């Protein structure tokens, strides 16, 4: 039962990432792409959690925490650069 659920969820996440990837490639604005990457990293986060559930292990949770902390920083840095043209105040 659980295996089926995780499989479906993973497929859904993969599809979501693929759609985001499409947006990333097409754009048209840089902000679209930025958003796409941010969504992909969120999906990736979810994906890793689901994988942990599927494999009944907690080894991926370290990665999840790191991703949750850092992906956001990268997005903010790029966004700041795009909007204000500076990163460090």
């Amino acid at each position, binding site marked *: 039962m659980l295996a089926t659920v995780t499989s479906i969820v993973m497929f859904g996440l*993969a599809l979501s990432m*693929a759609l985001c990837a499409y947006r990333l490639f097409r754009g048209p604005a840089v902000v679209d792409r930025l958003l796409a990457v941010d969504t992909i990293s969120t999906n990736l986060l979810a*994906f890793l959690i689901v994988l942990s559930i599927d494999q009944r292990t907690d080894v991926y949770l370290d990665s999840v925490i790191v*991703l949750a902390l850092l992906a956001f920083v990268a997005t903010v840095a790029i966004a700041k650069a795009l909007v204000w043209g*500076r990163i460090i105040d």
Partner: protein
Amino acid sequence: MRLSLLVIPILPMILAGLLPSAGRLGHRGLPLVCGAVASVTLLLALRVAAPAFSGHAVTATIPWAPATGLNLTFLVDGLSLLFLLLILGIGLLVIAFARFYLSPDENLPRFYASLMLFMAAMLGVVTAGNLLLLVVFWELTSISSFLLIGFWDRDPAARSGAYQSLIVTGIGGLALLAGVLVLGGAAGTFDIVALAARGAEIRALPEMPVALGLILVGAFTKSAQVPFHFWLPSAMAAPTPVSAYLHSATMVKAGIFLLARLWTIFAATELWFYAVTGFGAATMLVGGWGALRHTDLKRLLAYSTISQLGLITMLYGLGTREAALAATFHILNHASFKAALFMSAGIIDHEAGTRDFAQLGGLRRHLPRMTILVGIAAASMAGIPPLNGFMSKELFYEATLPAHMADSIGASLGASWPWLLPVVAVLGSTLTMAYCLRLVIGTFFGPEGPYPQHPHEPPAGMRAPVELLATFCVAVGFLPGLIAEPLIATATSAVVGAHVHPHLALWHGLNPALLMTLIGLSAGAALYAARRGSARRALPPRLGRTAGELYDVAIHGMMDSARALTSRYQTGRLRTYILTILGLLLVLAGWHAWHASWPGAGGAAPLPARMPMTAVPRGAMVITVLTIAGAASVCALYRHRWPSILALGLVGALVAIYFAWMSAPDLVLTQLLVESVTTILVVLVLYFLPRKTRDREPRLRLILDGAFALLVGVSASAVIYAILRRPFESISSYHIANSLEGAGGGNVVNVILVDFRGYDTLGEITVLSIAAIGVLALVQAGRRTT
């Protein structure tokens, strides 16, 4: 006692080393010291070489680098003795001449140091008993003569003349070294005495033609034989004492000496006969022709030297004892009259302020004594009796007669074209007579020229060396048996390796040689008379392109193509560089892998046992891989930076997913950390860089680059795939087994990092620290400049 052979070249060399810091001695002291050392060396040489007079060679060996075959082996026989006397005797006269010739303001320590170095090198060449040692000294003569010719280095002509002579003789030196290596390698020794003893065996070696050909290139470049003769006239930019020394008795005679040294080994081969005789004869004629063409006194002498060297070379080429005798005798005679002539040219230049025939003429009223001296020396060169030059010329004529070549290698030539060599000989003499007349008449007779300064007789000290040499020319002519015969006899005996008893005399009776002399002299006089009207202008037509021009063309062509070639591959574009590196790797690895796996090429027929691949959900795999590829190509294709960076982030994320599939949580962690930090760093870097989009590239290039990149990627993947599908065992089982027990750590990866291969980690930590320092240094430097 024998070890004092070593002292002969070493003594002047030590002095050469000391002189640069002996400027205090002044323009009088320096030549005095040099003269004293040369005299001591001369006495020593005479003392050591005494047995050589009676035909016994003196040898001594000191190990230098025996493992390489190069030893300090010295050999002094009659031939060496002749050259020792010439080098030191003429050397003393040149030092005396230079004492008066060079102004005290010149950089005299440098001059005398180079001169003594050159003298030492020459002494080494003629006393070397080991071919490699000979090459060592030979190259040393090239280097020191370069310094001497370029002594007046502020004059561009001196620079280019020195450069040219070094390059030409340097080429010859390397050819000689190559020839000696081939010869020594094939014969198993570099020792001259040992080689000479095995002449017949060496002549039969298959490597002989190569070795001899290379050695001859060496000898010909040094002795200014056609087609390498052009460096000698260019070297006339040297101070006259240098020309007098280098081009009468020493530098150019080194090549002749080498021919004489190897005569016993090679003279009985056809290659020797045709090459040495042929090039010698050609040189004699080309040199004689050139001496008629030039209007500069020293250049005329330079070409006459070329011509005379050709004569001597030709004689050694003939391969008969009579010819060798004539050659050896002429070495002595040429040294004496040519040194006198060069010094006279220096005196004339010094006194009249010019060496140009257009400005000379009629000097006999101002320089009566010089007129006589130059007349004697020139007459000797032309071969007019009763001077020494006449006697060697007679011997030369005789040696070219077919009757004298009956038993030698040249017999067939003598039989089929009996007139060829005698005609060439007479032709050479004709030219010689003509340029000698031009030299004497053009300088001293006829109307007075517009001299740049008023000429008067030189100081007695400057003239004394010339007087001595002229006296020698006359004395040998009248008393050959007393003065020259013993020396020439031992020298020739040493050359041919058998006892020779020459009878040198002025009168040999009415014979063909005398007839040839008469023809040559009168034809020469006629030639001169015919051209007399234009005696002051440049004379006979030039013989096509001269070798010197060809040299220039070759050098310029070489430099141009070097420039073109270099700018072609050193483009400064990373694209070409990376393309070359990867392309070369693909070709080499592909080629050798193909050959190794091709059956029959020592390769392998059986395919390796296949390992099963790890099972993963296919569908998700395909999506992941395709997205990675897509994102990567987006990176490559986008011209704008931000989308590229974002796409790169996607690649990183998907690789992390892939690692997760493969159950490698620590890799996922590392990948994500590296990925995020890299993205932030790249954003930071881009932020500081000027805003610029990539240039639009031609479509074809993009396609080609893409295809190439794909090829490299596919090849690398194929190799990795092949690796992964073969059975694998590694040392890591030991690591797993010993991790907890031996190193006290549960996580084997950690233990490998900090213990098993902790030394690697030390290195990597250092790399990171250095990078940090480097960044800090750059940032600080950047702050300072802004």
